[in-house]
């Protein structure tokens, strides 16, 4: 429960107040003053208000960051799925319709997951990941271009597996950097 965080804060405030009052340079009058109480009350309310707003903003930011990281991980998973399918298809000399449909479906899933992440970053109005996201978008284009250019959809070009893997590694590297960037916001 969120209200429990206020208990240690209140205890800390009381202890700090007593310790401050115990200092020699601080003279505490043994009098009861309504003015002092009112000032204390107002100060306390202000403090609580600021703390509430800060906690709310910080919770919202944390939730957004967690969502963005989750979406970025979805993109990584989608990219890995594409590479897994490429691994299976590379040895084939002729693709069947089912092979092509499977790869296209995986590429679509990858494209759409990246689009979702892009929309979420724009929705959160975060400026930090913008350049990295643009790089990931270019990666997507380059990767799909390489995989689905001729002789696709008949087969992959002979010997293209190493370059597929290199592109895949580059994608994941940029996505991982993006996740770190989001985490530090």
């Amino acid at each position: 429960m969120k209200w429990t965080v206020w208990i240690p804060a209140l205890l800390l405030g009381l202890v700090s107040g007593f310790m401050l009052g115990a200092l020699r340079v601080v003279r505490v009058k043994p009098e009861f003053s309504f003015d002092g109480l009112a000032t204390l009350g107002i100060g306390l309310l202000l403090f609580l208000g600021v703390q509430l707003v800060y906690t709310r903003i910080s919770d919202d930011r944390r939730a957004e960051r967690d969502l963005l990281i989750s979406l970025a991980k979805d993109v990584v998973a989608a990219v890995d799925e594409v590479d897994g399918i490429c691994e299976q298809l590379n040895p084939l000399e002729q693709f069947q319709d089912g092979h092509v449909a499977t790869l296209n479906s995986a590429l679509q899933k990858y494209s759409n997951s990246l689009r979702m992440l892009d929309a979420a970053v724009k929705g959160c109005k975060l400026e930090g990941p913008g350049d990295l996201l643009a790089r990931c978008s270019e990666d997507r284009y380059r990767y799909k271009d390489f995989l689905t250019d001729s002789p696709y959809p008949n087969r992959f070009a002979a010997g293209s597996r190493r370059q597929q893997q290199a592109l895949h590694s580059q994608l994941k590297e940029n996505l991982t950097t993006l996740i770190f960037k989001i985490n530090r916001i």
Partner: protein
Amino acid sequence: MPALSQLLLRIASEFSKTPGPRTRAEGKHSAEEFLDTILLNRFDQAVSEGQSLLIDLDGGYGYGTSFLEEAFGGLARQRGVEVVLQHLDFKSDEEPYLRDDVTRFIRQAKTGFR
């Protein structure tokens, strides 16, 4: 400039749900076949009627880069990049990035793909 009224071309229902390779020599449902038999005629019709041609990319099994580049990049090479950009539009609810990809192929048509 006011928006042009639109003709619609649904690739999945009017050509193939499984668009194929770049050229006829490479296999069936090629981009070359699509361009020669459907796209050029429909595009010219749209231009002559003062309309734009809306290409619906949904409903199929997906598109390879070679198909899209040969079809739409090829259209731009034959009819001109600016004319094509002015009279062509794309719709894809299934894969929104497709629209950007195809537009890129059209813009790169004269300077050469890759």
